């Protein structure tokens, strides 16, 4: 029911014609939709369970393109006005990065003509497509993992979540941060700083996190990971820093800086196995020093967010207890 509510409130932000069509989609599908894709002159598409489908005028899900609602220029323009709260100028910094985050923490990717100026990207004009990613919180999905990430002396193991795109790594990271921050009966909560470069983790909207990220969590929103890690060390006195999608050379340097300051780290990275990540040039140093003490590998074999493997600092598998 909550999933459907989230979907309905998101769809309220779309152009009238698209809104009416998308609200007619059957209930059991509404709750599963991960993305709504709008492209100028192309059929209205939704994406769920690894496949995309077209939507007909009366809300039917179809694979027959001739039945699909065709998205036109006006649909895109008015949707953009609505999602940007009639104020694209207020979201320019986000637009420059190719997206807007709206209330609810949903992220809308923007395609169009990128305008370059003296200081790099200045704007995106002639918007041709909008990709609406529905942000869903899965509160409690990391509960079973927490005993493997913290020991009985309240020691948090530096953790790396490895996952291909769309397998729930950000959702898992967010829930781990929530657990770390709130604490539980067997450990006291940690001070956590999130460096949320793409406003996905906390889903900040007007200074308010739209996601439950815990009571002891500070957020540096829209901040480069490399800058944010240093800023957090200097000013937010975190015990743990959480970052999404590391990989750049500068990120690695900043991670080293954090480790020297005695701060623990939890991060995610794109990949499908530990071996694959170890071979990445930029990550070699980190692996040689064995910075990470826990590796969580995700896939979609049993649905989004399936924990395929959990390993320790020497890449030895840790077996999850039955029922986990």
């Amino acid at each position, binding site marked *: 029911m909550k999933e459907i509510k989230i979907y309905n409130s998101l769809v309220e932000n779309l152009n009238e014609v698209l809104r009416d069509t998308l609200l007619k989609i059957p209930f059991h599908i509404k709750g599963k939709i991960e993305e709504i894709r709008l492209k100028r002159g192309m059929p209205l598409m939704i994406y769920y369970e690894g496949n995309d489908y077209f939507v007909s005028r009366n809300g039917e899900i179809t694979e027959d393109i001739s039945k699909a609602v065709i998205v036109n220029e006006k649909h895109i323009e008015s949707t953009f006005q609505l999602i940007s709260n009639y104020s694209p*100028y207020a979201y320019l910094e986000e637009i420059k990065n190719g997206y807007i985050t709206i209330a609810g923490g949903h992220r809308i990717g923007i395609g169009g003509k990128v305008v370059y100026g003296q200081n790099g990207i200045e704007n995106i004009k002639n918007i041709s497509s909008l990709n609406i990613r529905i942000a869903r919180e899965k509160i409690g999905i990391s509960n079973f993992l927490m005993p493997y990430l913290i020991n009985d002396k309240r020691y948090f193991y530096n953790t790396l979540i490895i996952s291909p795109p769309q397998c729930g790594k950000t959702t898992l990271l967010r829930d781990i941060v929530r657990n770390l921050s709130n604490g539980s009966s067997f450990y006291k909560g940690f001070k956590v700083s999130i460096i949320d470069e793409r406003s996905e983790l906390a889903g900040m909207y007007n200074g308010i996190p739209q996601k439950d990220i815990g009571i002891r969590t500070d957020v540096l929103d829209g901040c480069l990971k490399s800058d944010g890690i240093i800023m957090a060390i200097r000013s937010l006195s975190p015990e743990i820093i959480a970052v999404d999608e590391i990989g750049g050379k500068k990120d690695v340097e900043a991670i080293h800086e954090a480790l020297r300051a005695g701060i623990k780290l939890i991060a995610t990275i794109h990949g499908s196995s530990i071996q694959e990540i170890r071979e990445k040039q930029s990550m070699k140093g980190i692996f040689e020093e064995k910075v990470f003490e826990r590796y969580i590998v995700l896939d979609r074999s049993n649905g989004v967010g399936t924990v395929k493997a959990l390993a320790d600092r020497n890449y030895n598998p840790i077996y999850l207890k039955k029922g986990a």
Partner: protein
Amino acid sequence: MLILKTLSLAIIFITCAILGYCYGQRFTLRYENLVSLEQCIKILETEIVYGATPLPTALSNVYKKGNPRVSYIFEKIKDDLLEKKRSFVFESFLEIEDELYGKMNLKKEDVEIMLSLGRVLGSSDRHDQSKVFKIVLNQIEAQIEDAKIEKNKNEKLYRNLGVLAGIGLIILLV
């Protein structure tokens, strides 16, 4: 009988004078409303260009900070925008068009300037918005100047005309 006659003549005179006054007052109202509208647009410019405040909040702030005799239309635009989930800001500006003509005594040219603001408000980056505000404010300023000249010319004229028409009618009737 004489008292009744005098009373009737007095009523005719007062009515004519009031009609003349009211007609002359329209020019003052247009002038004053344009001045207040200019102030409101300047507040909106500050909110958008310097504060990057989202449009609905910026419109609310104009309502709070501006002269309420005019600034209420900005709150109306905001309410219409959000309640009806308009696709474009211009649609909400069209909703207040009648109000601009009626209550605020504005002329077609004045209303057109306001509508031209509605066509582009919030649709581009701050740099472009700044240019739009500059143009709109220049146009409003020209209209204020025009309203001022009209006011000076016509306000007294119609007031005097009312009084004179009253006196004329009395002379005719007597």
